[in-house]
């Protein structure tokens, strides 16, 4: 809770900063105010930090109205000054390099990072020409510097749409390997030691060896070993399915189904009876409808589910 004293200090500090910025401040008087109490110096620095972070807005200058790559802003912003401009924070922020103001770099903006919690999904627009859809428990970062656009996939799974509007490819960097993505649509999923990149449209190149991955192919790259094969229709279905919030099963084992669901759950499903693991399941299930899934396996196979003391979901034979 901010005390009134704190509020006063912040107001004083802001007045000083504005006066200094306008050139109307008495420098000596300012220095005296600042050294009078250490809390004056603290308040001034907090206000100066806000002032500096506002500089990150500079790239917004000159943005064209009705740019089709931008998204509509929430209602309140549409009145007043911003009426002519349509943008999202993430989209604009994307092209930023580190901002240097009067000698100090505000490094917080040098590389943008976005992540999703377990079970969360997010879409962000990076660079204006790249849209990324993050699946559960996923982490990405991006940065543009000297016209080279880099996207780091640190964790999880992401679908990427690279616009043809700009000729620059995207440099996708994962713990297992690097890919250059031409305009197109891609899905990248990180597993324990590998990255699985599926090219839906467009083409990618695996670096540094320069092997090309074409539309309809999947590359599994561990950094030391590589396999490129035609993506089977089922795995393409699965990629489309997660984007729509579904898990698609076509005869996989219960183990597999549970592993897939567990990606989206903080409290995991545990198969208590090893004999159940090998049961084969088919069907499309909504990720958010865990109860529906559990009811289906109960009806089909007589598998019971109960919650234990820690909140895990235990599956046993009925």
């Amino acid at each position, binding site marked *: 809770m901010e005390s009134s004293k704190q509020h006063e200090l912040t107001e004083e500090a802001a007045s000083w900063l504005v006066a200094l910025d306008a050139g109307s401040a008495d420098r000596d008087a300012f220095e005296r105010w600042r050294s009078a109490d250490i809390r004056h110096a603290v308040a001034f*620095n907090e206000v100066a*930090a806000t002032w500096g972070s506002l500089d990150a807005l500079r790239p917004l200058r000159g943005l064209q109205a009705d740019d089709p790559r931008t998204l509509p802003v929430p209602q309140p912003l549409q009145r007043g*000054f911003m009426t002519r401009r349509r943008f999202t924070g993430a989209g604009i*922020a994307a092209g930023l390099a580190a901002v240097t103001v009067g000698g100090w770099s505000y490094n917080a903006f040098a590389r943008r990072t976005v992540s999703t919690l377990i079970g*969360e999904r997010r879409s962000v627009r990076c660079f204006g020409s790249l849209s990324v859809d993050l699946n559960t428990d996923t982490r990405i970062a991006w940065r543009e510097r000297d016209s080279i656009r880099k996207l780091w996939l640190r964790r999880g799974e992401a679908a990427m749409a690279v616009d043809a509007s700009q000729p620059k490819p995207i440099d996708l960097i994962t713990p297992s390997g690097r890919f250059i993505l031409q305009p197109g649509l891609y899905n990248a999923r990180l597993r324990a030691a590998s990255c699985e990149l599926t090219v839906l449209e467009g083409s990618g190149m695996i670096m540094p060896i320069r092997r090309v991955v074409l539309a309809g192919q999947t590359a599994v790259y561990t950094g030391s070993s590589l396999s490129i094969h035609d993506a089977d229709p089922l795995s393409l279905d699965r990629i489309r399915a997660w984007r729509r919030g579904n898990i698609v099963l076509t005869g996989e084992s219960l183990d597999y189904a549970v592993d897939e669901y567990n990606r989206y759950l903080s409290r995991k499903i545990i198969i208590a009876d090893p004999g159940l693991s090998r049961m084969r399941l088919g069907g499309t299930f909504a990720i958010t409808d865990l109860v529906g899934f559990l009811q289906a396996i109960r009806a089909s196979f007589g598998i019971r589910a109960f919650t234990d003391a820690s909140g895990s979901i235990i599956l046993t034979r009925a």
Partner: protein
Amino acid sequence: MSWLRDIDRWFVSSVLPHANSYKAKAAFLCSVSEADDVVQDAYARVLTVADYRSISNPRAFVLAIVHNLAIERLRRSKVVRIDYFASLEVLDVADSAPDAFAITAGRSDLDRLLRHIEGLPPQCRRVILMRKIDGLSPAVIAEQLSISLSTVEKHIAKGLVLLTKSLREDGRPKDHLSTLWKARSNTN
């Protein structure tokens, strides 16, 4: 910005970005309502360190100050329950707890800033954006909006105050931390 000394630049670039962590730690040890005071006290201490350049990990340094200040506060408080001190033994675990805040900061920094700007009074927002996006000088802004120069400066100052305040409070511990707090109380 020549009005920042070297120590100020260091403070802004190395100390302030972790404000959420400091606040989370303070709230964890004391209470949410005292967290701001504790963090402000910590900032005051940090800004008096003469040899700040030799601090290898500013975030950890400030977290340690917050820790000590919070403990002092607990000891001085007359309302302290006796079992607080028993739970203080587990403080090594508590050191990592505030990092949980990084999770809630999945919202990128600029998204946050833009949200707060959105919440400013209209004229205030207009002036701030003319100054900071379009880079217009206060004099030109005054002319374009047909208001006085001092009014322009007042709007900028007001916007700065409101934004600094809302950015500071954005790190305010919400459900996640109170869940942690409850969990710790239950284990006592």
